[in-house]
């Protein structure tokens, strides 16, 4: 498996390059928005990738709660970090697109707001992991992940109704998807997904390594206290 990594990395990079080329060069220029619209070829696939990683985190957290499998916990943290990275990309590229096209950096509409809330919840998850001491941190983090997952539908509902009561001009517009654009979206999504999974895999191995090193260190200090050299 480890040997496959460099090969997969090269393939993924090629894929990313190709999809970026499609997005920047091949895709037709939008009549209304000009070339700036090409940001969505990064923005939207990043969002989809973000959702897949948060879903992985949720499943891994539930598995951990049921079985206390430490591999599941490693998957959970790796997936959460990848999710937050892609979430950050979405939150940054969104305003960079909105500003030239609609003249505003930000609006509290349902998509942007719920993405921000998701970011906040998962950053708090990572902070909990960082500030927790001891062997029960995976358990606490997993419960938080479950709470977060339960919360998201409520977040969507509440913001949706808020916007129904206080409507705003919709930024990012519904609009129909030009079929030529769709396949470039999917292509970029596939490329980002592969890239994300590769980095995720590395993060997962790192976590397992870290755990091993920590255990060994604890064992060493135990042995030392019992029979000092």
């Amino acid at each position, binding site marked *: 498996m480890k040997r496959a990594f460099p090969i997969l990395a090269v393939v993924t990079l090629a894929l990313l390059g190709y999809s970026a080329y499609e997005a920047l060069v091949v895709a037709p220029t939008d009549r209304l928005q000009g070339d700036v619209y090409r940001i969505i070829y990064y923005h939207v696939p990043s969002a989809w990738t973000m959702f897949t990683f948060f879903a992985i985190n949720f499943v891994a957290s539930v598995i951990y*709660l049921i079985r206390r499998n430490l591999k599941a916990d490693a998957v959970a943290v790796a997936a959460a970090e990848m999710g937050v990275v892609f979430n950050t990309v979405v939150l940054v590229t969104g305003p960079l697109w909105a500003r030239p096209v609609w003249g505003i950096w930000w609006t509290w509409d349902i998509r942007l707001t719920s993405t921000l809330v998701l970011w906040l919840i998962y950053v708090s998850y990572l902070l909990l992991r960082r500030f927790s001491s001891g062997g029960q941190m995976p358990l606490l983090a997993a419960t938080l992940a479950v709470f977060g997952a339960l919360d998201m539908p409520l977040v969507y509902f*509440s*913001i949706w109704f808020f916007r129904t009561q206080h409507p705003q001009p919709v930024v990012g517009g519904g609009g129909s998807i030009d079929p030529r654009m769709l396949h470039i979206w999917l292509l970029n999504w596939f490329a980002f997904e592969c890239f994300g999974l590769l980095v995720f895999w590395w993060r997962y191995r790192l976590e397992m390594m870290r755990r091993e090193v920590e255990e060994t260190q604890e064992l060493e200090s135990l042995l030392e206290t019992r029979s000092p050299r």
Partner: protein
Amino acid sequence: MSTGTLLTRTTLMKDLRLEWRSKDAINSMLFFALLVVVIFSFSFDPTAEESRRIAGGLVWVAFLFAAVVALNQTWARELRNQVLDAYRVSPAPANSLFLAKALGNFIFVAVLEALMTPLFIVFYNLRAVGPAYQLFAVALLGTWALVVNGTFFAAISLRTRSREIMLPLLLFPISIPALLAMVEATSSILTGEFSAKFWIVLLAAYDVVFTMASLFLFELVLNAE
């Protein structure tokens, strides 16, 4: 009476009695909420019309911060006296302990709200244009929403460094839908512009979901060592 209910009642009465004697939590909460109100007053100088629009947000922010003060001390006494170990070993269900703590916090925050509301009415010249009785439902459901998650996250924060800052860090993002509902419901009732019914139903749903989740998962958190 089953062990569970007995435990809940005993723990709750003990907490209330202790608090009644020292009034530590309630005093700090009250003062904190008052400070928030006054500081906000310096930022806004609203007309009566404006007051009704923004009061919802102000009130709930003040109550939220004050609730955090109460929540942070939820488990402090138990931790100081190693009582949690005793609870872990006892046959009583962990849920009963959680319920007692949550109800205790609920009563503290509710008392705070009852004391602060006249102050808000005076400072901002508030008068509800919509059905004021609905405000009770909003207060009840909203306070429980904050308290049930807050008590749970307070238990999680026990095992973290910077315990006091961890609680709001965890609580605030998850509470966003409930906070939005509370604020919007209050504003709707005060201004009379919209019906608060959807928000009240949303709060009820939020309460049900998270009460069940907390009861379900608390045992795991309590036993985490």
